[in-house]
């Protein structure tokens, strides 16, 4: 699931547009002004980057400069894998450019069944349902399974797609403090007896790159008879002995009722999915509106996804190298004196905490001019209103490139006087 760096994940109250306004866009005036002020200061637009040419999973020509990509979530570097590309090309030739139809009408091709089979094998689960995006997977599953009178208990730092799934449904929504086991339990304990409960967690939280204590949290959820949904978007492919995610790593995957994932990170294309062992899961295909009322993924996309997923089952060397990259970058940045989102590397996301938005934006631009792309995340999208430079590593980054990245961070950090 992609991250919008300027918009908060949680729903926010809109500014009052004033009573005289006839223009429905007046409510956006404060944001328009903030953006104008930022660009008037001469800064390159952090949210208007264009990739003119993509040279590999880790390099591109951006705004005219050859750039190392360190903010793509392309964790396993599958986007240019020759077998993946070949599968996509063949599917384009054999099945055409698109399905022009819903999965439940004319939009289920053999490739859609094949990618769902690959997911069942990857996760060793009974059912898999593929959505057109990861966002729609959360939107669809959460809004459909938690109905009126049910309770959704979720982490306050949940991704926008989870919040929007809550907003689309009719359940009571109860957030708790990020990764706070005690706060979660208190809320579960107070839910009226007999109400259905869904606990929504993420394996890796993408802002700071920290992981959830799923083992403890899922045990508590089960104590209160809640069903558990875990979004493993940022862990698929490299966390856990088989790359199934944080729940597998912590030995509790069997207790997760629904795993949500995406094709737009480690898998290297676009699409989303839910895998489950629930015996009645297949009914979701008929009742889940974001699944029914959308055209299915193009044949080339499901073909590349299926090929990539099968290759990820056997990607132990890449996994090891990705972890080495994460550890090297984390230790290097820490050594340079940067403040990081986690004390130890917990995932392939390393968040560098900036002292304020002004210096964060200046640092982002200085890095881009050095030839490095990272994600700028700023308030109000961030936890505790921090300004972050989010780095996500790829298994295709070489040891040498990680060294170059550290040199660029050192130069930019000194230029902006952060270190």
């Amino acid at each position, binding site marked *: 699931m992609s991250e919008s760096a300027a918009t908060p994940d*949680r729903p926010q109250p809109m500014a009052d547009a004033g009573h005289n306004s006839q223009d429905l866009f007046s409510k956006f005036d404060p944001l328009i002004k903030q953006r104008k002020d930022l660009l008037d200061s001469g800064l390159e637009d952090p949210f208007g980057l264009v990739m003119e040419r993509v040279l590999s999973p880790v390099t591109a020509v951006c705004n005219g400069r050859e750039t190392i990509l360190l903010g793509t979530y392309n964790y396993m570097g599958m986007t240019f894998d020759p077998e993946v590309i070949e599968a996509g090309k063949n599917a384009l030739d054999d099945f055409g450019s698109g399905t022009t139809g819903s999965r439940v009408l004319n939009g289920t091709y053999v490739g859609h069944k094949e990618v769902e089979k690959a997911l069942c094998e990857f996760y060793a689960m009974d059912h898999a349902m593929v959505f057109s995006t990861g966002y729609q997977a959360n939107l669809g599953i959460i809004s459909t399974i938690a109905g009126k009178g049910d309770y959704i208990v979720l982490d306050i730092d949940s991704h926008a797609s989870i919040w929007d799934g809550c907003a689309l449904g009719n359940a*009571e*929504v109860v*957030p708790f*403090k990020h990764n706070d086991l005690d706060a979660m339990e208190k*809320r579960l304990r*107070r839910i009226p007896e007999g109400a259905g409960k869904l606990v929504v967690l993420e394996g890796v939280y993408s802002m700071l790159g920290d992981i959830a204590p799923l083992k403890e949290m899922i045990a508590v959820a089960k104590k209160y008879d809640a069903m558990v949904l875990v979004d493993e978007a940022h862990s698929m492919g490299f966390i856990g002995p088989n790359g199934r995610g944080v729940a597998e790593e912590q030995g509790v995957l069997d207790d997760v009722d629904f795993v949500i994932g995406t094709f737009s990170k480690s898998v290297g294309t676009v699409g989303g999915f839910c895998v489950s062992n629930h015996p009645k899961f297949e009914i979701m295909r008929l009742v889940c509106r974001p699944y029914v009322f959308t055209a299915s993924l193009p044949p080339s996309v499901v073909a590349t996804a299926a090929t990539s997923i099968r290759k990820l089952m056997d990607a132990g060397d890449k996994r090891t190298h990705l972890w080495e990259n994460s550890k090297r970058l984390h230790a290097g940045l820490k050594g340079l004196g940067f403040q990081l989102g986690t004390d130890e590397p917990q995932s392939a996301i390393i968040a560098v905490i900036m002292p304020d938005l002004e210096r964060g934006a200046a640092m982002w631009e200085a890095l881009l001019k050095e030839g490095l792309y990272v994600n700028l995340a700023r308030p109000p999208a961030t936890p505790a*209103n921090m300004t972050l430079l989010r780095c996500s590593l790829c298994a295709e980054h070489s040891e040498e490139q990680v060294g170059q990245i550290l040199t660029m961070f050192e130069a930019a950090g000194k230029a902006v006087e952060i270190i």
Partner: protein
Amino acid sequence: MDRDDTKARIDTLIEPFNKKGVGIGEDTTFAGDLEWDSLTVMDFVAAIEDEFDIIISMNQQAEIETYGQLIDAVTKLRGA
């Protein structure tokens, strides 16, 4: 449950959250007068939930704009 008792306890709870020292009355609004962001709202709601051992879902919070409405809602939830 007694509304005055509820109000007295919430009056104490809100103090550390009222960083701007706004004079708080029944008509004080959280978004407008107190200018709270969503994280402050979460922490304040958690403090109230713990004090009264109740749950105030976001759906219920959406209906609460003023301090007086909050006291009414908590009083009602305590009685439920």
